[in-house]
């Protein structure tokens, strides 16, 4: 899957958690600005794992998110790309 395809899926997953239409999640949006709470975040990560067949190394206790940067749509897309490359 190319970058645009991954981005579309990431936006779809975040939008589903936020109960928003995908058109309201901008490709440059930041997750905290979208208002996703901590449970929504872990549900979105689970959805990413299921959808892409990956295992996301994310620990909610690490504020700087060294293993998987979940702070923006762009950083999530980059993280998924990296995991898909293996």
């Amino acid at each position, binding site marked *: 899957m190319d970058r645009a395809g991954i981005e579309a899926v990431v936006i779809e997953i975040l939008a589903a958690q936020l109960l928003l239409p995908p058109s309201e999640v901008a490709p440059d949006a930041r997750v905290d600005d979208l208002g996703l*709470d*901590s*449970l929504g975040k*872990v549900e979105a*990560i*689970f959805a990413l794992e299921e959808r892409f067949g990956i*295992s996301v*190394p*994310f*620990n*909610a*206790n*690490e*504020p700087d998110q060294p293993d998987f940067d979940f702070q923006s749509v762009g950083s999530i897309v980059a993280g998924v790309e990296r995991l898909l490359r293996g």
Partner: protein
Amino acid sequence: MRRVVVTGIGTVNALAGDVPGTFAAFRAGRSGIGPLTFRDAGRLTIRVGAEVRDWDEARFTPSERALYDRVTQYALVAGAEALAMAGLAGPLGPRAGVIMGTAAGGIRTWEESYRAVFAEGRNRVPPLVVPRLMHNAAASHLSIRHGASGPVLSVASACASANHALGLALQQVRSGAADVMLAGGAEAMLCFGGVKAWEGLRVLSPDMCRPFSLGRRGMVIGDGAGVLVLEDEAHARARGARVLAELAGFGTTADAGDIVAPDPEGAARAMRAALADAGLAPGDIGYVNAHGTGTLLNDRSEARAIRAVFGGAAPPVSSTKAMHGHAIGATGALEAIACILALTEGIVPPTAGFETPDPDCALDVVANIAREARVEAALSNAFAFGGLNAVLAFRRA
């Protein structure tokens, strides 16, 4: 009002199979966290926990082993130690009861049964699955074994279960409904399904538990049980029992907010309620055994709550979870035992694994090395998922 005292304690946990061994580990600041050893642990992302090691099931007869999930086994061994220390022998009769906390009950029995019917395609499970896995199994077997035929029940409030059990047992004795209560908690959640479920929340640490420390990476689950013998003070004095401490107060509140995120306001209200119930002022408290899970959110929220209650003069704080792990529904009972060590021997057990103070947790954290201090009274905090807070206040005998 009847005063309620602690006349016996017993435990099984990752540090030791009894109280003397646990006290020795508390004094030494030793951690019981290590690699997980149960079946399929290699398939997990998180592979550390505070397991009870080298458990000898042979101490139970074959018919008992068929009936007792591990959670019940831990409770029975801890209960026997507590009663022996209290100098009580069964049958304890209708003026005695049992209240035990557990979050997951017989989860290993669920797991083994599901594995048999789903994964292995078997058509039947052992006949005693229901009495093994029911949440009240540990409380009921303690009642049966020791002939305690008064108020007996189990309490499930996730990580606050044991504190709620101890608080409710305090109220049974105080109200006159019972003279003697066995109370505490038991948990045996360290199995593949138990850890797999926790992994999904992304709050488990992959290595160590470092409560209140900068660089903490989350909680580490533990197994075990703790049982306290609570007794009407006059009843205990009349029979010449050694009184270890007074269980002086219980505060219980709900955040009525988020299902998992902690709220410092609800936590502070529970601490204040426990102090008021005990007739203690904040300045009387010489030690707080924190909930201190080692997650980013809990420790920050709890530090705010402690500062709200104590102002700038907060007493020494430690989280013993870095040693015995977060034993979920049993953890409050293990931490009550840590408070008893502080009150009876003047040893404040440390927060093992502590590296660097976190400005977001500005507390006097007893780090890594036990501290000698005369403690007149102690608080023990438990703040559970579901927004349920339970705080106990203990006073020196």
